[in-house]
């Protein structure tokens, strides 16, 4: 299962790779990364069919996570990828905004990787 992680923090990449070290080794999961919403959209242009799940930060310079979500829901309907939004601001407004724009789930930082792993298991 290919997962695209969108976050402006570059250190998110080694973190995910280590956290899902076993899953990657066993080829259960495959990760790709984008540092901004724009980069994510460019990536999806060529790889959208492979990508099953998109994990995106909301607060990013430039295109925000919500905007990215809206574009994904608009451009890629078949099959629609699963989109989970991640934010440090776990407030109600952020949550509502994410869900109305078509997010499948909403996670808050700091990320609980155990919780995320369980959610991924449900998907597979």
């Amino acid at each position, binding site marked *: 299962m290919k997962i695209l992680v969108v976050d402006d923090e570059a250190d998110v990449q080694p973190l995910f790779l*280590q956290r899902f070290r076993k899953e990657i080794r066993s080829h259960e999961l495959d990760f790709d990364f984008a540092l901004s919403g724009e980069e994510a959209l460019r990536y999806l242009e060529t790889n959208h069919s492979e990508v099953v799940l998109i994990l995106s930060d909301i607060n990013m*310079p430039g295109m925000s996570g919500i905007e990215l979500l809206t574009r994904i829901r608009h451009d890629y309907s078949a099959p629609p990828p699963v989109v989970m939004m991640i934010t440090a601001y776990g407030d109600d407004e952020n949550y509502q905004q994410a869900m109305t724009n078509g997010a499948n789930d909403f996670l808050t930082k700091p990320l609980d990787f155990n919780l995320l792993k369980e959610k991924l298991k449900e998907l597979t």
Partner: protein
Amino acid sequence: MRVYYKFHLISILSIFIISGSAFCQNYVSNAQYDSLARELLKKTTDAEKIKVLQLLIDLEPEFSIEPPQRMINNLDQLIDLNNKTRVIDEAGYKSLRESYLLWRNGDLERALIGCKKTIELFDKQKKVMFRLLLQIRVLYNLLSKLDERFKYYTEKLNYYLLTGQQENTAACYHGIAGYYLYKADYNLAISNYLKAAKIYKAFDTVYYYNAIGVVGVTYAEWGNDEKADYYLKQAIPKHKLFKDSGNVAYCLTPQIVLNTRQKRFREALNFADEAIRFTKNNFDSDGTYAIMINLKALVYLEMQKPDLVLPLLTEVQSLIDRFGYKMSSTSGDLEADYAFYKYYQLINDQEKAASSLLAAYDESVEVDVKSLQLKYLKELGFFYQKNEPALALQYLAKYFELNRSMEENKSLKVAQFELEEQDKKQNQHITTLKQERAVQEATIKQRNIILWTSLGALLLIVASALFLYRQLSINKKVLASLRKTQTQLIQSEKMASLGELTAGIAHEIQNPLNFVNNFSEVSVELLEEMEIQLANDDKEEALAIATDVKQNLEKISHHGKRADSIVKGMLQHSRSGSTSKEPTDINALADEYLRLAYHGLRAKDKSFNAELITNFDQALPKILVFPQDVGRVLLNLYTNAFYACNERSQSAQPEEGYKPVLELTTSAEDGFVVIKVRDNGTGIPDNIKDKILQPFFTTKPTGQGTGLGLSLSYDIIVKAHDGTIHIDSKEGRFTEFIVRLPLKV
């Protein structure tokens, strides 16, 4: 019309006794008085009333018996009004009122002292009161103090010649002239009347013709009929014109006397009748009418017509009985007893003639009129010559004795030439005195000017000094309080921007903390895995894990430091005083605050988004700045830029596709580090471009901005760092703030 006047009777042998002038109550002065009295009723303010009352008092026509009640009323009213308003110095008027009340009560001695004191008071105020001055001679006459009168007017004359009060000198000449008339010194009497007349001419026509009339009558008395005619012809028409009936009658007396003497009785009677016609309405107030009737009787006596004399004398006697006229009064000489003597002689009643003549003589002694005494003593001598020569001799001896004493009293035993020389000398003396006085006054004036000017200057200097001192102390206080306020304002601006930062800081700290936590947790997992690998002797895998763990620890350390620097920055930012300049990486500082600003704004407004473009000159050297101060400036610039972008995005139409962009550029140019913060927001309108660096200027709605951000930024960059801030902006397109900081301090 009541007329008071001084009447000079010229009977055949009479000489003038009392004063030299007819009184001046006449049509003109009465009309003037009446119109002023009407004016008084129209005045509403106290000050105006006081003015008119003063004039009424000053213009009160002369009186021969006592001050009229209206004079007292006017004085009462004036003093009463002035008590409330204090418009004038009332001392003179108060003294005048007291004096006149004494006069009315018959205390003439004290009235005289009071009037003289009143004149002194008005003299002090330099107020001309020539009518009052003249009025005083009436008091002297009533008191028969003729020598004192002469002395008084002479002294006053010298004083007024020095002060230059012309009107008052006229009154003095007038008063002196009357004295000489009493002394039968016609020469000096006329000289002084003419001096008075010359001065009167300049300011009072009525008084002028009054004096001219007296001169005429005096010439007649002296025996110069031609001169008498010359002056009387001028005076009589004017007296008639002024309806000055007393003076008309007075001026007619020489005609009556002259014509009688020349046996032209018809003319004499015509003039007498005219005089009676003019005065017949006034017999209740003074003796003028009685004097005229008596004169007419004397004409008939010369005509030897006793049957015509008797009714006239009976009328005179009844008037005397009714009003108590005296032989000599301010109205002139009323020689009723003398006329009776003549009458009894005519009808050959020697006994009654003798008793009448003796009565006349006794009264003349009583009133102390020496000229009449002489006349009657002489007559007594003639009367007793035939039948009682011893008695006649006795009276004649008295006559010569009196005559001798009078001649001795006469100061005039000097030739006119010498008198004129004396006059000249006195004039010279007065001129010298005047000049000395003028020089003295000029010196005093000059000295006073210098004194007052110096005093003024001194006061001004003292006042300025005091003012300056006060201003200085006020300024000091104001400055201190301003400094305090400024500090508070800066602090509150810091706290405001700290508020803006808090959310951003929370986010910024949250991220590194997450990494610290996550990398720690994953490292523990990795180490557990490594333990298993080592147990399995999978050395290669264990080494790979060790590399990861090492990398993670570096990450942990990095994010820990990141959080640390954010917290430190926050503390520095809120700290009141600047510490010291530190070598600072401007790129890092600018980047850090950009993130803080951005996330701070987003924390408040989730819908806000902006593209952040950073063009850092990586070769930028560290420069010495107050990092927290420069950070605050940058934060302020970013916040403003985001605000402008947000404003524009809210007003922009969706089809415009407006995307907020903030571009941060650093570079090194001409010895300066240049930081450019450019946004594509609303831009700054031209009309406020030069205002935005002023304190308290803000375009933000009330409560959203302190208006201090940019002005403090200006202070920090320009004053604390010797840098510059420039603004480039196009309304509706962009704003660029260019901050230059010197590379070397």
